[in-house]
């Protein structure tokens, strides 16, 4: 019995002694942390240097993320692996599935300023973006689409896998349905006819950033809207043989780059094509005021404003709602917007910016197995003139 107690004492002592040992063996961990800290410093240096030298932008704009990964890897030791993710870039080609009748498809195209095949392409922040409509109107066959658009209500319960795949739904209409997906709630009360882009919440704010940059095409002798009034646009050639436009038959001539103020709203002229040889004479213009007032004469029913409201009235109602992080994996975007009518080019400009936001690229390099002890770097490239803001997430780890 006495021997047993002594052995028990020894075992307890050993347990105590070996329990203390980990405190003496923490140096290898400290070394790992130093290695990771130095790697993190190197990666941040590389991203800043690439950004300042313009190399980063050229890779991102061309969508060549594998090239960027190889470039960064060539600067790092051979035992470091990296993964790159980029958020916040509109795609160069946006595939649109229109789950609609032929008449509705034409309405949608007119809203977006599309009258000729060339109008599917437009310039945004120094790069060319193209809308590509899928050759089907059946939602079941829209697996390739980035954005699926429809007028009025649809039962989307069978198509929730599309959200998981990162696609977006855009519903245009005044009916209320699929409230959860589109984040809409009915609200009683008198709805104001004027609404503005919500700048108090990040994603609506980002849609607003697209709105002031995206052009809408107005053909010669046709109308565009500013608030509740429509105005006519005429393409002309001035005395110096430069293309110009005139508004509402007034004598003033405006040129590319000019900003016109109509009804306290600033409108920028981004392009003018006065060449009649191809039968297309037009001007690309943009409303560039963030606090532009969208007018809707009969804004019923009333939808309650919340943090995901894109267009909000002064009395707490919404004309357009967005939703994001819909699925459990954080994918999927959805937008509901009231039907303003295809003649409303201000609405068309907003719809274009909503499509850009909804289809935004979530670039990532080819995935490989990531080591448990990885480091994560975030680098934000803030938007400057003719360039867009985007976020780079870089994951790095030692393979041995």
């Amino acid at each position, binding site marked *: 019995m*006495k021997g047993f107690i002594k052995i028990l004492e020894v075992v307890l*002592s050993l347990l105590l002694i070996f329990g203390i040992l980990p405190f*003496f063996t923490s140096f290898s961990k400290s070394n790992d942390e*130093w290695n990771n800290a*130095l790697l993190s410093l190197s990666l941040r*240096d590389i991203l800043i*240097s690439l950004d300042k*030298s313009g190399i980063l932008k050229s890779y991102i704009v061309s969508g060549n993320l594998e090239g960027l990964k190889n470039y960064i890897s060539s600067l790092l030791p051979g035992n470091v692996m990296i993964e790159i993710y980029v958020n916040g870039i509109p795609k160069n080609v946006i595939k649109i599935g229109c789950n609609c009748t032929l008449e509705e498809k034409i309405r949608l195209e007119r809203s977006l300023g599309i009258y000729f095949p060339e109008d599917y392409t437009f310039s945004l922040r120094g790069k060319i973006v193209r809308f590509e409509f899928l050759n089907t109107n059946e939602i079941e066959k829209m697996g390739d689409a980035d954005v699926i658009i429809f007028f009025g209500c649809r039962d989307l319960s069978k198509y929730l896998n599309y959200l998981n795949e990162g696609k977006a739904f855009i519903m245009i209409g005044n009916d209320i349905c699929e409230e959860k997906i589109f984040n809409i709630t009915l609200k009683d009360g008198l709805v104001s006819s004027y609404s503005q882009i919500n700048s108090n919440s990040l994603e609506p704010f980002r849609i607003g950033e697209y709105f002031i940059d995206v052009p809408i095409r107005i053909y010669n002798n046709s109308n565009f809207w500013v608030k509740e009034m429509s105005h006519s646009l005429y393409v002309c050639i001035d005395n110096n043989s430069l293309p110009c436009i005139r508004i509402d038959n007034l004598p003033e001539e405006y040129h590319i780059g000019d900003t016109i103020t109509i009804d306290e709203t600033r409108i920028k002229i981004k392009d003018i094509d006065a060449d009649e040889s191809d039968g297309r004479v037009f001007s690309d213009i943009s409303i560039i005021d963030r606090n532009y007032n969208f007018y809707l004469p009969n804004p019923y029913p009333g939808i309650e404003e919340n943090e995901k409201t894109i267009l909000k009235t002064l009395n707490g109602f919404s004309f357009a709602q967005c939703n994001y992080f819909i699925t459990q994996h954080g994918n999927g975007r959805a937008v509901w917007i009231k039907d303003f009518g295809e003649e409303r080019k201000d609405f068309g400009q907003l719809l274009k910016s909503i499509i850009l936001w909804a289809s935004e690229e979530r670039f990532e390099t080819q995935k490989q197995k990531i080591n448990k002890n990885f480091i994560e770097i975030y680098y934000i490239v803030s938007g400057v003139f003719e360039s867009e803001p985007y976020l780079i997430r870089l994951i790095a780890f030692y393979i041995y």
Partner: protein
Amino acid sequence: MKAQLNIDFILAVTLFIISILFVSYTVMQNAFLLRSEIDKEQKRLIGYAISQLIIFDKGYPEDWNSLYSLQKFGLSLSPYILSRNKINAINNCSYENYNKIKNLLSLPTENDFLLIITNQYDETISKCGLEHKLREIVWIRRFAILDGNIVKINLGIY
């Protein structure tokens, strides 16, 4: 019973002595490692501070292109953009010039540095410093731009 007690006692004492020896050995070894680790950390901190000067500081005078006139060390034109003139001025520095830079950096006497700036393909663009074969070196690697191209700044501290 008596014999049984003795065996228990001998076993317990043996185990206890082995544990004491093991702990003493571990503590001694770690004390040595700790000293070495502290030394490395100091070198890393010095290296990091110097690398910050290289990347962010223009030096004084701001447009210096000769070590003769240099009063404050720094190799940049603006943050992350290095000056070709300054890089050339320190290339293949003499022992005297090395000491001048070391003095401007207030580097402790017992420490030395080795600065090697290379391009993306590890071809040396500029080199300045001392090499010691027997002393342990700690490397800090930074990146910056020189003439529109990314360059590696390898700074070793002895």
